[in-house]
């Protein structure tokens, strides 16, 4: 067995027991990257020299008998939306092609404080706008299970890299499903924490009332470990919540007797992919066999979620992306003759089509005469969606749904049809609108061998409950033992 096949927690244990060094773990991950990256295309920027330097430092500390943090010396990748000091950060956009940040974001600082090893910056949809990683300015990332398929998005590089064993874990961000959907499509575990649980400081903003940072890992234990490292209040993010962080590993229990698992009937709709439906229904049955209590719940406003999201998210994005003006950083057009043209030409040449489409949509719904009909209306429907969940959680401890309506689709299949692409987030968007924690984990495979994911949803700040329910299911099944052959 190669070292790169280990999970994050297994690698950390081997390192603690001195069965391997951090340099060995790092060399193994780097070897895997060089063997598979041509096929997968997960990285925008690789940082092998830095990785080896960081690994050596950790090994020296181990040799000196110093006590190390739980993630010390483990190779981890970051979505290229995380601002990293002195390392190019592009957000997969031409407009930030040469941007070298002068600081680290909080999640990155926390991982650095744990002395992780950075493998590099991972590909994504431009400004996290997409569900397939096809809107990246730089490259197309492929699904490790089938190279003709997309890895999901927007954190597609983060998902593909973990699924292909190029790194032991990665961080992604999730605004409408961007951690959970690619996790489902690549057969890994992805957790979007409660809004406010993890600091957004130094995460390039897309839709600020929805964006959240979370772990993408090979199994549920790793998810708990990585969440532990990044969760907590941060004075540098005014929306981060000053609430104590529990010890997440304590929630990794097998016993789910009496746990009330809610099944929202609106998530099992006619016309949805039969293989996905069957796999999630089998998982529900499994919970029942394990002693959980299955209850039917209703989230009646589910069908309005995509519409609500595609007003609110572009509105916030159009405002956030106003900062890219070609003046202080980022791309500046050389064609402009005056200041006004500098703004227009820099933005028009620097942004890709999907980003422009969302800026246009957002500017439109916020413009005079349309604000009440679109933006305010959507904010009100958001309240209804939140209330649906509050009512459901009076009957259930966690909810179970499919993560994505289908397994990974083919490259190019939906790029010409924005509405079809937006509908691939139909089961994940609600969770962001309500600010809740949600998690995707593997629950089966299609006949053609593509992974299927299920989603668990819990009340705000109950990530522990998600980890508990997910861990128990994972231990009772063997999906995680299947790996893509590359």
């Amino acid at each position: 067995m190669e070292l790169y096949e280990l999970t994050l927690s297994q690698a950390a244990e081997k390192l603690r027991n001195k069965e391997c060094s951090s340099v060995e773990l790092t060399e193994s991950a780097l070897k895997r990257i060089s063997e598979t990256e041509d096929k997968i295309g997960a990285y925008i920027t690789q940082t092998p020299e830095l990785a080896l330097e960081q690994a050596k430092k950790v090994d020296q500390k181990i040799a000196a008998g110093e006590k190390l943090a739980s993630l010390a010396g483990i190779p981890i990748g970051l979505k290229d939306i995380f601002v990293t000091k002195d390392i190019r950060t592009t957000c997969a956009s031409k407009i930030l092609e040469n941007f070298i940040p002068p600081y680290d974001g909080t999640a990155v600082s926390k991982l650095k404080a744990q002395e992780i090893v950075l493998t590099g910056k991972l590909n994504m949809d431009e400004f996290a706008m997409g569900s397939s990683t096809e809107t990246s300015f730089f490259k197309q990332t492929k699904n490790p299970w089938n190279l003709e398929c997309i890895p999901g998005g927007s954190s597609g590089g983060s998902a593909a890299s973990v699924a292909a064993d190029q790194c032991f874990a990665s961080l992604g961000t999730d605004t409408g499903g961007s951690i959970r959907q690619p996790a489902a499509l690549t057969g890994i575990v992805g957790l979007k924490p409660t809004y406010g649980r993890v600091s957004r400081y130094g995460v390039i903003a897309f839709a600020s009332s929805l964006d959240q940072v979370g772990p993408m890992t090979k199994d549920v234990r790793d998810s708990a470990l990585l969440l532990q490292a990044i969760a907590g209040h941060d004075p540098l993010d005014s929306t981060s919540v000053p609430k104590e962080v529990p010890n997440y590993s304590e929630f990794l229990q097998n016993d789910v007797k009496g746990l009330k698992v809610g099944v929202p009937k609106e998530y099992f709709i006619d016309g949805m992919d039969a293989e996905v439906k069957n796999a999630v229904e089998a998982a529900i049955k499994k919970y029942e066999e394990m002693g959980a209590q299955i209850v039917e719940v209703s989230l009646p406003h589910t069908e309005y979620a995509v519409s609500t999201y595609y007003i609110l998210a572009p509105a916030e994005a159009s405002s956030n992306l106003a900062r890219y003006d070609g003046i202080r950083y980022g791309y500046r057009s050389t064609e402009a003759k005056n200041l006004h043209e500098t703004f227009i030409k820099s933005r028009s040449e620097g942004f890709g089509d999907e980003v422009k489409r969302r800026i246009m949509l957002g500017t439109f719904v916020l413009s005079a005469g349309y604000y009440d009909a679109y933006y305010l209306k959507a904010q009100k429907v958001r309240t209804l969606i939140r209330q649906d969940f509050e009512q459901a959680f009076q009957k259930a401890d966690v909810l179970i749904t499919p993560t994505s309506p289908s397994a990974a689709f083919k490259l190019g299949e939906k790029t010409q049809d924005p509405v079809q692409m937006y509908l691939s987030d139909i089961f994940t968007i609600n969770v962001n609108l309500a600010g809740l924690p949600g998690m995707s984990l593997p629950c089966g495979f299609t006949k053609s061998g593509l992974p299927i994911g299920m989603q668990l949803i819990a009340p705000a700040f109950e990530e522990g409950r998600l980890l508990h329910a997910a861990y128990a299911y994972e231990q009772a099944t063997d999906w995680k033992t299947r790996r893509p052959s590359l």
Partner: protein
Amino acid sequence: MIDKKTVTSVAKLARLEFPEAQIDAFTDQLNQILGHVEKLGELDTKSISATSHTIEMETPMREDKVVESEVFKQILDQSPAHEDNFFVVPKVL
């Protein structure tokens, strides 16, 4: 439904410009998306309050203190054009 003229004026507001053919494509696509979101009109929301933020909290306050930036030069270095301590832009007047 929005027309080409509206799309052109929204582009102006967003500081974006498009070749003629793309304006047509965008008008179609935006109408498709807006057609989809019309669905919200089915709901009566007269007595519903708006949610702008899911977690209830107060605005955190801090002391307004002047501190020296340690990365002043790196920040300037990221700009497409700068001189002394200033960003350089094309002539405004």
